[in-house]
């Protein structure tokens, strides 16, 4: 059990302070893997809430509180003439106490796999009702802990070495933890104007598939070093996120991973600068690893991504496009970094060139399959994402291409896509895609590519990693989010 205080300052009279990231950080630092984090407000005018961090909704909540317990409505608590032992600075805040009664002063958030268990749209708020003030919450973390990374190092800060010159970490430290720690460490040292938006994006989640591929591939060669692999994996994740920030501006996306995009929240100018900063920082971190083949591999992938982005936007004029154009764009836009993640991890561990190339092909095929599965998510009502977003944004999407080619629904799909896409049109196109065999075809094709990816690895000695790579390939295509 760990007991702490979470301190913060508020700046408004009523303010919803999103403390989700601070709680995540506490969980991360503590090494809590499975358990609970309990929170208790230490004030009678600070409440707690779990809800969506959407600025207009927060204004709705404020309005609701104002309607239910209006300020200045003649509260008896504010009649100082009738009260005893009041402080000289006693505020007029009967409304704030009443509002707190409508909220809660206690809450518990579950923790699994070292992270808060929250729904896609959920954030944890401390709700200031009588600010601005300095506030604190009592927090307790209990459950199963693993040692923090600092305690796993020897007294001289060394990590144990294996006989072969590689590095060995206690099995309790999972690869994923190393990447998260490295990301946290890197984002801690950057200037706030760039670090804060990137931290928001990185901490909002993401599948971390690319770092996982780096770390798995880095176990194949004789020079496996988990710390160097984590450094490369984190740099590639930063690079991926940098490209997403620019993509979101180009696509005029308002949300990513359930949160406002950097462009939507901070403006296009800031989004461009943040993307550039992490593009440069990631390439520097990779260069500093000191393996020229790794640096070139990732640089080539980045160039392919940027070229494909240009093709992607150009093809929107011929929306929904065709299968060949789709594959060409996806190979660059998505698969290039999957392939580079696999190849660079293997290169870092000085794996056999045959294995490096097999992994590169595995990553390429897996990347295409992953993108196809991602396209299908746009038509899944259970994904947690708004259905039809790709249609609305005229993003290249294989189910749409197949539906547009379909003998029965194709003419109507093409007619609708050629016009203005309002809510009714997007809904109708979604219905038509679902009613055709387009999703079935895309699913079959994605699974076929995942199996082809696995066949690339058949002749490679994978030192026990095969089941993990098989599971990863299959889970990348069989998902609904």
């Amino acid at each position, binding site marked *: 059990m760990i007991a702490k205080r979470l301190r913060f300052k508020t700046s408004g009279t009523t303010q919803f302070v999103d403390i989700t990231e601070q709680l995540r950080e506490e969980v991360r630092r503590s090494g809590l893997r499975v358990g609970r984090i309990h929170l208790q407000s230490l004030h009678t005018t600070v409440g707690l809430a779990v809800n969506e961090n959407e600025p207009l909704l927060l204004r709705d909540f404020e309005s609701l509180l104002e309607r239910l317990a209006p300020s200045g409505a003649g509260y008896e608590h504010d009649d100082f003439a009738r009260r005893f032992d009041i402080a000289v600075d006693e505020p007029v805040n009967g409304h704030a106490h009443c509002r707190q009664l409508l909220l809660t002063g206690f809450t518990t958030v579950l923790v699994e796999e070292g992270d808060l268990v929250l729904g896609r749209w959920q954030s944890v708020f401390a709700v200031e009702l009588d600010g601005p003030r300095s506030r604190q919450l009592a927090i307790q973390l209990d459950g199963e802990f693993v040692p923090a990374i600092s305690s796993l190092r020897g007294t001289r800060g060394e990590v144990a070495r294996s006989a072969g010159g590689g590095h060995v970490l206690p099995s309790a430290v999972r690869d994923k933890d190393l990447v998260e720690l490295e990301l946290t460490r890197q984002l801690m040292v950057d200037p706030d104007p760039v670090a804060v938006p990137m931290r928001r994006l990185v901490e909002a989640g993401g599948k971390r598939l690319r770092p996982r591929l780096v770390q798995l591939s880095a176990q194949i060669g004789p020079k496996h070093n988990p710390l160097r692999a984590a450094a490369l994996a984190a740099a590639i994740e930063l690079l991926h996120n940098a490209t997403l920030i620019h993509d979101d501006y180009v696509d005029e996306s308002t949300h990513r991973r359930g949160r406002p995009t950097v462009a939507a929240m901070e403006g296009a100018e800031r989004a461009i600068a943040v993307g550039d900063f992490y593009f440069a920082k990631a390439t520097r971190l990779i260069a500093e690893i000191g393996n*020229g083949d790794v640096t070139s591999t990732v640089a080539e992938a980045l160039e392919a991504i940027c070229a494909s982005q240009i093709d992607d936007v150009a093809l929107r004029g011929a929306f929904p496009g065709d299968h060949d154009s789709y594959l060409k764009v996806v190979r660059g836009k998505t698969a290039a970094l999957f392939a580079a993640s696999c190849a660079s991890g293997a290169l870092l561990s000085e794996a056999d060139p045959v294995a490096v190339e097999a992994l590169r092909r595995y990553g390429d095929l897996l990347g295409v399959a992953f993108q196809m599965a991602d396209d299908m998510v746009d038509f899944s009502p259970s994904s947690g994402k708004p259905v039809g977003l790709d249609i609305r944004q005229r993003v290249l999407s294989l189910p749409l291409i197949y539906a547009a080619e379909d003998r029965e629904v194709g003419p109507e799909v093409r007619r609708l896509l050629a016009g203005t896409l309002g809510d009714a049109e997007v809904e109708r196109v979604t219905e038509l895609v679902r009613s055709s065999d387009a999703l079935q075809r895309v699913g079959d094709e994605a699974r076929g590519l995942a199996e082809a990816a696995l066949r690339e690895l058949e002749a490679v000695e994978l030192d026990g990693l095969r089941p993990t790579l098989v599971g990863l390939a299959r889970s990348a295509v069989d998902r609904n989010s």
Partner: protein
Amino acid sequence: MTAQALVIGRELDRLDGLWEDGLSDTYRSYLDVVDSYDDAVQPKLALAAALIEAGIRLQGLGGRAAPAAALLMGDLCLARASRLLADHASQDLQVAFARAIEEMSAAAASGTGGRPVRDLLVGAFESGR
């Protein structure tokens, strides 16, 4: 066509329009800066620097945000420069260039006027030597 022109031509795929639009002049001005580097890599390094300068201008970094198409072209310039540096520059020079872009973009994000891009890149050539 000179050997140098051939080398550069291969690196201008999708960017030929920029060459006519000032990139060639920027490239030539960087050739003077890289004369202490190996002869074989001088064109590549000068082109990398020129592409960074062009890319940042296209993106509108530090000024008004560029429209989507220009931003993507700017991204491609930066990516091409990064690959040229990965393939032809020392580790020190790669790091110096990356730090220069970090400085420019951090200044842009904070809304403070940073040092001119040319100064930063010339400084990177000096420190990465």
